[in-house]
């Protein structure tokens, strides 16, 4: 196996990876839940609080102005990285969940009337499902849900059929956190646009694994969380096309998002501030910039190539275990392996893996309807990041084998 990543060197940059649990070196395979942070990111946040901390915007003093500039430079950098047309198309939020809720509420108010519907896929994370379900509920409707086939891919024919039912908004995940499936979002966006329907892409699982390009995808909204791409918790991004964001009403109220305020009436500030109510998480935004620079420097292509090798090796190794059932075997898959062994409950498997120092996630992965689709209570999920190794996959395989023996 060859790779252009120097993984051993990369691992040195991530302090958590040196942890021991139950006296065993930690094998961290829960990256789809959250990634670990490199020193550079931790240091950036620390440096902010030790030397630069200040509330931003409207401050005329030095610290405030420096912090504001750093914050706005992060916005510009991120806009450039994902190839947005304008930096004010980047709205900082608390995370993917807040980003989706913001769009559901605000775009919902703009576009949706009684009887209108939203189209999603059958593999959405609850965060890209319940907000839309709620809007539909308020309109007296139900979600339109594109079917998932047996290997865990979106059924594109069914998707097209549902587009013809005239949903007002489409919301789809880029990569399934539970299955690893990479949706053909570019094609799905193009299809929706032929019906003039705006599309939100849930990129929570994609940004750490591939370069995303807003011009190329042409999505109307793209959302992701910092903590899933090596950045601190408490910050996320909402990218939205200027033309939509300009038209949409504000979501939260207070702080910097206003222009003129009287007790009778309030007029709102321009983009991006209209959507950034209250003191932003400046430190985390700077950390997010540092994290994304780290990923960019490591190289999106090199990361994807390496993670693909890990994925292939993982399938191959785990596949040698008797009774192994992979849940989700899409042709295009990112760094996630969801599985069950025989009739063993995922909770039992996860508990024993933990005792052997291996951190995987078990359960429904906030995608209950998807589990229902496969008629399973949940899965064991191993999810990879750029710092995982082939040796760790060997350890995982060995541990699963041992746990299965104990449980059989």
């Amino acid at each position, binding site marked *: 196996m060859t790779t252009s990543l120097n993984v051993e060197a990369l691992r040195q940059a991530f302090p958590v990876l040196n942890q021991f649990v139950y006296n065993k070196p930690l094998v961290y395979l829960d990256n789809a839940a959250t990634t670990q942070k490199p020193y550079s990111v931790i240091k950036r946040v620390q440096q902010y609080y030790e030397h630069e901390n200040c509330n931003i915007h409207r401050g005329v003093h030095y610290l405030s102005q420096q912090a504001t500039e750093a914050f706005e430079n992060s916005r510009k950098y991120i806009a450039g990285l994902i190839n947005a047309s304008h930096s004010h198309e980047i709205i900082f939020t608390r995370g993917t969940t807040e980003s989706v809720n913001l769009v559901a509420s605000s775009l919902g108010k703009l576009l949706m009337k009684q009887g209108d519907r939203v189209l999603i896929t059958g593999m959405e994370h609850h965060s890209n499902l319940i907000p839309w379900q709620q809007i539909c509920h308020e309109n007296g409707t139900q979600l339109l849900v594109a079917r998932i086939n047996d290997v865990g891919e979106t059924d594109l024919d069914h998707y097209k059929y549902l587009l013809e039912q005239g949903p007002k908004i489409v919301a789809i995940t880029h990569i399934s956190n539970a299955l690893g499936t990479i949706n053909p979002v570019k094609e799905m966006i193009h299809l929706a646009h032929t019906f003039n329907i705006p599309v939100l892409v849930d990129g929570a699982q994609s940004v750490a694994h591939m370069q995303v390009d807003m011009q190329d995808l042409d999505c109307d909204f793209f959302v992701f969380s910092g903590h899933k791409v090596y950045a601190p918790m408490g910050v996320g991004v909402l990218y939205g096309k200027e033309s939509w964001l300009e038209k949409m009403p504000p979501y939260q109220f207070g702080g910097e998002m206003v222009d003129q305020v009287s007790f009778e009436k309030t007029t709102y500030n321009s983009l991006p501030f209209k959507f950034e109510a209250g003191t932003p998480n400046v430190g985390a935004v700077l950390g997010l910039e540092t994290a994304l620079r780290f990923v960019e420097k490591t190289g999106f292509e090199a990361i994807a190539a390496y993670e693909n090798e890990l994925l292939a090796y993982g399938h191959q190794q785990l596949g040698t275990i008797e009774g192994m059932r992979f849940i989700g075997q899409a042709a295009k898959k990112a760094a996630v392996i969801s599985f069950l062994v025989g009739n063993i*409950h995922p*909770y039992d498997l996860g508990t*024993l893996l933990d*005792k052997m120092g291996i951190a995987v996630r078990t359960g429904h992965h906030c995608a209950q309807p998807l589990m229902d689709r496969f008629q399973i209570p949940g899965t064991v999920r191993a999810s990879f990041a750029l710092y995982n190794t082939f040796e760790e996959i060997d350890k995982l395989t060995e541990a699963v084998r041992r746990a299965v023996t*104990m449980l059989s």
Partner: protein
Amino acid sequence: MTIEAIQQQIIEEFSAFDDWMDKYNLLIEMGKDTPLIDAQYKTNNHLITGCQSRVWLHAKYKDGKIYFTADSDAVITKGIVNILIRVLSGQSPEDILKADLSYIDNIGLKEHLSPTRSNGLVSMIKQIKLYAQVYKLKMDN
């Protein structure tokens, strides 16, 4: 047998093993024991959702004592269910209410009773204590 006596017994059963693997093997064996609950009670009515694993609990009151049967879909959870039931079933409401469950710590299975584990066990214990409370009230009246 008193609650304390049974607890002591269980602690001894586990103390034979130093290794976590042996402990878990024992726990799994306990979990594999014939179902602790009558099939007719394994319904949504008796279900305690724990998100990760599900627990069913049934209570019967007779002659001043409460008899519990329970089950789980995960075998490790079921093992602990077994341990708890062995201790608490057939006891008086008062004794159940007073029962100190920290013996689970001594066995080295503490983490399974963490409220953050979402395996249904914490809710099951709550439910058991609730039953005890209700029957105690009934007795007092």
